[in-house]
């Protein structure tokens, strides 16, 4: 019986590449008086899907990340996985 899983996938620009959205936001926060050193912007996808077990769920998320959610040239990813009630 397959279970439902929720994966929260974080996709961020690899370090070393300039992140114009983060830099602009950091400047804006400094302008508001905060001592902000750096801002890096990430994207979060919440993916709900079915899998036979936790191992298969992990494999599926990895595959989704590699095939569509990231471009390995510039993106890093991390995810949290939990079985839903």
């Amino acid at each position, binding site marked *: 019986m397959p279970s439902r899983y929720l994966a929260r996938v974080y996709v961020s620009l690899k370090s070393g590449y*300039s992140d114009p959205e983060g830099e602009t936001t950091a400047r804006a926060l400094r302008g508001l008086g905060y001592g902000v050193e750096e801002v890096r912007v990430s994207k979060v996808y919440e993916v709900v899907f079915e899998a036979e077990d936790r191992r298969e769920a992990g494999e599926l998320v990895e595959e989704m990340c590699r*095939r569509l959610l990231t471009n390995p040239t510039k993106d890093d990813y991390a995810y949290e996985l939990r079985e839903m009630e």
Partner: protein
Amino acid sequence: MRRREIRVLILRAPGTNCDGETVRAFRDLGVGVDVLHTQRVFKERNLEEYDILVFPGGFSYGDYVRSGAIWAKECEYHIGRDLEHFIDQGKAVLGICNGFQLLVEAGFLPGFEGKARYPQVALANNTTGGYQCRWVHLRHVNRGGCLLTSSLPRDALLRIPVAHGEGRFLLPREVEREYLRRLYENDQLVLRYTKPDGSYAEGEYPHNPNGAYHDIAGICNPEGNVLGLMPHPERAYFGWQLPDWTRCEEPPRYGDGRLILESIVKYVERRF
């Protein structure tokens, strides 16, 4: 092959918006042009009927995830084999702006060892404050390896507009020098951004409008029959599309974009 026998397929998808200009430009060159919705081509699998395939500019699927990514994976899933076969036959594939992003995301460009499973380079968001829509200067740097631009003289300077938010050409940091060397060795560099005097932009805004590595604006595959470029040749095709044509004593009949599109047609005329 005679020019009037050449058939061009311009694919459109939800969010593409440059198909109209691209059709008009190719029709002016005297070739047959069809515009088909990508879903129809997925169903009919009829790429074989065509000699030139164009992925036009726009914002396919709202540029969600990354520009061109969703359309790329969809094409890969439905007609990936057909596309590879089309390319293997030496037929011409052109990706303009969003079309270039698609060819990168689908692994056709740079395609060092044929189609890659995952993208080998990236077109990341501009470092220059969001969306850029402006006329830029370009140098045709290819030495003849790009079959699609082989009618253009080496070092030809072109003036063509860009319009994109994600056009910063990037190589993976860990192999940056090696990939650049391979692009040179395989003669895959096609267009680089320059200043109006023809010297390279060296990353300087607005000449390099997006922060692209090495001022790269367009590349081809090692075989030279797949070309992707961020600038829009279809928006610089007719003389009346140029920003200063009303101030010219004699308005030019055509713009520089025509040189690129006509060169593609000439390649097909010669080859087939």
